[in-house]
């Protein structure tokens, strides 16, 4: 039996890593003051919980567009429109950014850079920028959601292209197919289910983020929520929270079911 003698560094390395992690965590905790909770915190928490238990049911549907149903529909519309439109726009970006050859590729590097730059802008900042251009409302939300999604989906799609099995493409080329044939008969059939999968996944996330865009005035259910929170209207906070939770859960469930069918 061969026992390899371990060097001193190899012996102490685990301890070094753990110590480093501890130092980082300690530094992080040192920066947070754990005091300064409002005196009324417990009271407000109780009020929110009782609001959740006694929600303001009259807000669910009132018939003239200022109710929870229309706010949730608007949220869904923002997420849906933003996701579908940007899924289509993201496809050329994905081909641009996909790295299929070994070594340095100027095309893929610039593509990846552009996608990264798009993704840096948080959705809220984009929403504020678009509100400057089109005024407050759901349209600004759609634009913000769409632009941010291009960055996210471009990245996911390009990774999908990179991980694609190259076999079918080579087969089409070997059989004398042109580049269009390769795209049509080998690349797209393998890619489309994956793209739809990513799009649905992104839609789940988009529904979540669309429900907060209203904080800056870009439409959706966020605006009535912030209004209810700032006016301490707890029964209304309760019903809006319930509405968001139900909406997100249903969307997750439906999208999960479709995705499972798709990957079979």
């Amino acid at each position, binding site marked *: 039996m061969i026992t390899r003698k371990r060097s001193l560094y190899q012996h102490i390395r685990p301890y070094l890593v753990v110590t480093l992690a501890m130092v980082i965590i300690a530094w992080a905790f*040192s920066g947070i003051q754990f005091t300064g909770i*409002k005196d009324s915190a417990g009271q407000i928490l109780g009020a929110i919980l009782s609001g959740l238990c006694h929600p303001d049911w009259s807000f669910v549907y009132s018939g003239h567009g200022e109710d929870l149903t229309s706010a949730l529909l608007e949220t869904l519309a923002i997420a*849906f429109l933003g996701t579908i439109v940007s899924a289509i726009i993201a496809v050329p970006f994905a081909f641009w950014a996909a790295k299929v050859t070994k070594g340095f590729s100027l095309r893929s590097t610039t593509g990846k850079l552009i996608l990264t730059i798009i993704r840096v802008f948080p959705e*809220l*900042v984009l929403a504020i920028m*678009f509100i400057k251009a089109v005024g407050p409302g759901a349209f600004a939300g759609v634009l913000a959601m769409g632009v941010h999604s291009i960055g996210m989906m471009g990245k996911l799609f390009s990774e999908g292209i990179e991980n694609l099995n190259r076999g079918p493409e080579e087969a089409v080329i070997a059989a004398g197919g042109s580049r269009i044939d390769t795209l049509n008969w080998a690349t797209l059939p393998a890619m489309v289910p994956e793209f739809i999968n990513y799009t649905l996944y992104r839609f789940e996330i988009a529904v979540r983020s669309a429900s907060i865009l209203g904080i800056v005035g870009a439409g959706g259910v966020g605006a009535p929520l912030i209004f209810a929170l700032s006016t301490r209207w707890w029964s209304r906070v309760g019903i809006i929270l319930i509405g968001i939770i139900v909406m997100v859960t249903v969307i997750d469930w439906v999208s999960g079911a479709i995705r499972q069918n798709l990957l079979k």
Partner: protein
Amino acid sequence: MNQTIPKRPFIKEWHVKGYIIFLLLNFALILSARITEVGQDFSSEQFFDLFVKMAHPDWSFLPSIITPLLQTVQMAIVGTVIGGLIAIPVALLAAKNIVRNPFVRFTVRFIMNLIRSIPEMLLAALFVAVVGIGVLSGVGALSVFSFGMMFKLLYEAIETIDQGPIEAMRAAGGNHTQIVVFAVIPQVLNQYLSFVLYTLEINVRSSAVLGYLGAGGIGLYLNTTLETFRYDRTAVVILGILVVVILVDVLSNKTREALS
């Protein structure tokens, strides 16, 4: 040899399903466009004016955002650590191969699904309302969010571990604590650490905007610079966030590679 091509059923021959899905999708798109009133005037001069201003960053603003940037990272780390630690016992309760009682399992999963469906900005808004403006609200929102995410990743990982060691511990007379400590944790430790890093990456990104609601960190500066129309400073803030996010991503990716 008078075989004919097999006849496809009508629905398949004419791709009925595909056309119906296509029509429904278009209908939904048009309906959404109606609801969101797409197509208002786009004042491009306002929009591009903003970009022009952003293209000339005010670098003198840089020193004053370094502390809040570091605070953002601290918030993300603390939130990840707290959420990640609480997630361990709860994830064990939800794993099929640890807890045999289906009632406990499904109750835990149901409650956790509810928690996970709340977007983190919403959590931040709630925490600001309850705890008050400050870093603590951000840490609270991030902790709850990481808790939900770590829970899901972890219990799925626990369910896929090798049953052998658990059975061996049971056969040797080990109690529940011993089974968890000696049979479960060693098998998922590496995965757990990589989930922690992954959650940290997401938390760094989101903690950068949490401040917008008054939950501490760099987001506050995003808010104030945008509201005072100092887009040249907004550009510096966004670049700062970019640098921090990339740094954390690179470090965490390297560590994750070393772990696997």
